């Protein structure tokens, strides 16, 4: 069992900086999700932990050990690849058994040694039972469904009880229903194994539902680390604000004005009050952000022309136009929905307004 620490880690591929000065501490037994858009360097970060890519600069630790110069095979980690990377010519049994073939394992608190065929078979059966694969052991990967293959890949990684699990978008090939089901199972697996999980995804729903903490990365740079709720409630900058949440946070350019104790943002002709202005200064140009669920239709406020109404059953989304910017409002499905073309007035919950510096995009309140 051990954590993973990045200290100023950079990875360059020629001119491309895939990971840029990453400093991140992942605690023992944590479920850390690396989240970011495609190409932001998530896989590269994971591959450096695995030892499949070497570190250009900085220090990488697993447990107390600096692993910059330690071979992949000598690190106690297991990885689930996005493509699963199962051996197509081997049965499920052989696939799951393969990490046990060459390594020494402590047996019954004795000195580590290679496992006998019987011991291996026992562990394979355990791992297979954990993941509901017991009936599939003699099949080859070609004869399995996507979800079953993904389980085999998981079984292959848990069978050796590694210090750290790495998973690279393991759910991306599954359909929506199976994905939701597997999310729950992964959280359960994490609880049972009590090991460090480092999980890469570009899907914020996966991150929000499974992570103990989320690290949001853009362009190789770490944007924010925190518990899902913290990241959602207090995004550190405009990128995080827009990336987390579905539909995403509405952001509009505005001017901040402080008038005695009353704080307001001025957006076009409209003034909206803000209850926690933080460090925003009078007259400062800001981007003010408000989540779709914190906007309500009121007698007066921000004028918004309805463009479309999306019905989701339990709620509806009004897509509106405010001074040329798209703004989304979440409403319970009560009463008749407004018609496209109608002009509404929106008010924002003053306690839920986010303020970002218009120049640096950093959070102000």
């Amino acid at each position: 069992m051990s954590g993973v620490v990045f200290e100023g880690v950079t990875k360059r591929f020629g001119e491309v900086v895939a990971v840029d000065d990453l400093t991140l501490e992942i605690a023992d037994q944590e479920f850390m999700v690396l989240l970011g858009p495609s190409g932001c360097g998530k896989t590269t970060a994971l591959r450096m932990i695995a030892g499949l890519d070497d570190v250009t600069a900085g220090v990488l630790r697993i447990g107390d050990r600096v692993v910059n110069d330690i071979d992949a095979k000598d690190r106690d980690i297991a990885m689930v690849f996005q493509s699963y990377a199962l051996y197509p010519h081997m049965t499920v049994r052989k696939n799951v058994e393969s990490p046990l073939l060459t390594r020494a394992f402590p047996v019954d608190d004795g000195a580590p040694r290679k496992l006998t065929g019987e011991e291996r078979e026992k562990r394979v059966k355990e791992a297979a039972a954990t993941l509901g694969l017991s009936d599939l052991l003699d099949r080859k990967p070609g004869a399995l469904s996507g979800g079953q293959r993904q389980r085999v890949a998981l079984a292959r990684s848990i069978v050796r009880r590694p210090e750290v699990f790495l998973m690279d978008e393991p759910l991306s090939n599954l359909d929506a229903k199976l994905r939701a089901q597997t999310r729950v199972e992964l959280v359960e697996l994490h609880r049972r194994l009590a090991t460090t999980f480092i999980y890469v995804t570009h899907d914020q729903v996966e991150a929000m539902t499974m992570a103990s903490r989320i690290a949001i990365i853009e362009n190789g740079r770490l944007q924010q680390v925190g518990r899902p709720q913290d990241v959602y409630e207090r995004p550190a900058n405009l990128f995080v604000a827009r990336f987390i949440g579905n539909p995403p946070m509405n952001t509009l350019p505005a001017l901040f004005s402080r008038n005695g104790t009353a704080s307001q943002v001025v957006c076009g002709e409209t003034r909206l009050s803000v209850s926690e202005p933080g460090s925003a200064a009078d007259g400062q140009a800001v981007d003010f952000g408000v989540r779709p669920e914190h906007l309500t239709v009121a007698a007066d406020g921000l004028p918004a022309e309805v463009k479309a109404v999306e019905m989701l059953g339990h709620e509806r989304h009004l897509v509106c136009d405010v001074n040329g910017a798209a703004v989304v409002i979440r409403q319970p499905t009560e009463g008749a929905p407004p018609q496209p073309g109608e002009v509404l007035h929106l008010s924002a919950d003053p306690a839920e307004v986010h303020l970002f510096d218009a120049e640096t995009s950093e959070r102000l309140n």
Partner: protein
Amino acid sequence: MSTEVQAEAGEHAAPAPRRHRTSRRTREALVGYLFLVPSLVIFGAFFFYPFGRLIWLGLHQQNRTGTATRWVGIEQYGEVLGGEEFSQGLWHSVQYLIYTVPLGLVLGLLLAVAAHRRLKGIKIFQTIFASTVASSVAVASVIFFVLINPQVGKFGRVSWLDLENPDSALFAVSLSSVWQNLGLTFIIVLAGLQAIPDEIIEASILDGFGPVRRFFRVTVPLIAPTLLFLVVVLSIFALQAFAQIDILTQGGPAGSTETLVFKIFNLQQPAKQPIGSILAVGLFGVTMIVSLGQFMILERRVHYGN
């Protein structure tokens, strides 16, 4: 065809689209056959007709000028295929196959594995290794001949490459074949290696497989279809080898390099043609049996990935 269409049309309420569909299917079939005609003509002219003629010749005797033939019947096949000429030629051909196929395959595999890595300038080596593909059998044989020439050759004093000695001549010729086929084997194996997903190799690294275990447990099984293909092709090459023998030894010394093909070639005088034809039919049979046998034995052990 037309009566069928009419009968159907009578039974159904909406005959028009049906008739249209049937006639379109006929038209499509006609177009399909039309596309097949060129290859049928080529196969007919250069394979089916000569093959039929071979079989026919084998049933006859011919005079010295080839102007008259006389029916002798199927017994001639039994005599020739049971005779010493055939068994000796076949034995040389089989030896040739045994010398060339495994050695060529292993060397090609080693070269491909050596050249399959991400290194600067590796393309240069890949080009060099593949270069024998671009040289003709004649040119390659002459180069080889010079290399092992006792007077001027770098390898002129190597006893097991002596073309003058009946015990070593066939092996020396085989070696030249191995070398000539190496480029092709190399290219095909390299393509097979490059088709293996990186992630599978990386998974095996994380599973703790060393290079040797990885090679035999992961790499070889994954390129097995490629290797099977090469075994079949190289075997056919071996059974058909002619030019290198003609250039290096002309079947000598003491007939020790007379493979089946070479014997067939030597029997191309009108009076002997029927015997040559029977040998050729025999070679065809042997080649087919060897190829089918390889497919049946190896295919069971070969994994075809999906």
